[in-house]
């Protein structure tokens, strides 16, 4: 099952009528309805922001801003399934702004963060190691490559949906995704070579 489908099932968003009713109630000023909306989409926004920004504190700040924007702009959000696309687009924009305002100052001493020797490079990866490897590899991407890869490969959007969220063409997105995949593959090869 695609990651997005998993997400929709997990959050109970598979019923468009319920979702439309919740959005309508939230639009009418019902704070509980907005909280339901928040619960339904918090994973989408926070996980995307976490992959785009690289740490949980910044991701929470960005996610908070996204949901406050949602609250302010509820009247503009369509009742149909555009809310998810809207949230992805706003999350990417907020994270870009966040990175512009607070550039990552800590120099990444990647050599020191690479793992020490272990038995099998690709097996027995702990959860922490996988996250660490993903985080380091995402740092090697440009901002646009990173956004394209996170939405397409990690969040499971289609190329057309990614293009809509990023405001670019599908051809551009394909180029960004392919470059990003090659960079990640090369980094992980190096990462596991060191590990072994």
């Amino acid at each position, binding site marked *: 099952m695609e*990651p997005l489908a998993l997400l929709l099932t997990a959050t109970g968003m598979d019923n468009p009528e319920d979702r439309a009713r919740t959005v309508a109630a939230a639009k009418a000023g019902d*704070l509980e309805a*907005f*909280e339901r909306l*928040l*619960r339904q989409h*918090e*994973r989408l926004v*926070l*996980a995307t922001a*976490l*992959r785009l920004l690289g740490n*949980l504190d910044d991701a*929470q700040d960005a*996610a*908070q801003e996204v*949901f*406050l924007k949602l*609250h302010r702009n509820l009247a503009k959000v369509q009742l149909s399934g555009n809310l998810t696309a809207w949230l992805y687009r706003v999350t990417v924009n907020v994270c870009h702004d966040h990175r512009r305002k607070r550039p990552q100052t800590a120099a990444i001493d990647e050599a020191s963060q690479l793992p020490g020797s272990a038995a099998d490079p*690709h097996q027995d*990866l702990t*959860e922490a190691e*996988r*996250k660490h*490897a*993903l985080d380091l*590899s995402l740092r090697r991407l440009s901002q646009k490559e990173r956004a394209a890869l996170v939405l*397409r*490969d*990690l969040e499971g959007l289609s*190329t057309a949906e990614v293009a809509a969220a990023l405001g670019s063409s599908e051809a551009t997105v*394909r*180029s960004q*995704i*392919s*470059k990003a*995949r*090659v960079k*990640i*593959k090369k980094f*992980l*090869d190096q990462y596991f070579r060191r590990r072994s």
Partner: protein
Amino acid sequence: MNCPEWEERIALYSDGDLSPDDLAETKRHLDQCAPCREFAEGIAHSLAIARAAHAEAISPAAFTALRARVLEQIARGRRPSRRLAWIVPSFAAAVLAFVLLVPRPVEFLRGAGDSHRQQSRRHDGSTSTPPPAPLLEPVAPAATQPFTPNRPPRARRRPKPRPPAEPFMVKLITDDPDVVIYWIPN
């Protein structure tokens, strides 16, 4: 990898992002090129690792904190601004002070309104209307409307009669003890 020109297409091939034409061409190449097959496997493997890491759960506490922050911000936005919060009590205090300190507030306000109307008439500039009566012109008592305040008028205090004051006097003492000059103004 010996075929850098195939790199981009192989990267897209791994997750089905190629057009049908490119897909067929890439498959043909992969059938013939072992290093590119290895490269394609490596791309697929790194994507699998990245997806596995991404799918791992974020702590529920992080979501709880996020929810609390968002809802608190919204609630704060709904409350009246702290900067303006002082206006209502200040206005109420000013009205209360006015009512308590001004003996006849209705009359006071009516007088202020009259003078304002007279002033505005004066600045009107129209020549057709006659000039207003002088402000200090005495008005016959019969023409005035008796003022009936909402509350009973306070009893006016009569000023207490003062004891007769001593006349003002200046006394000049000279060097000569027998000579003293008094100045008493009329």
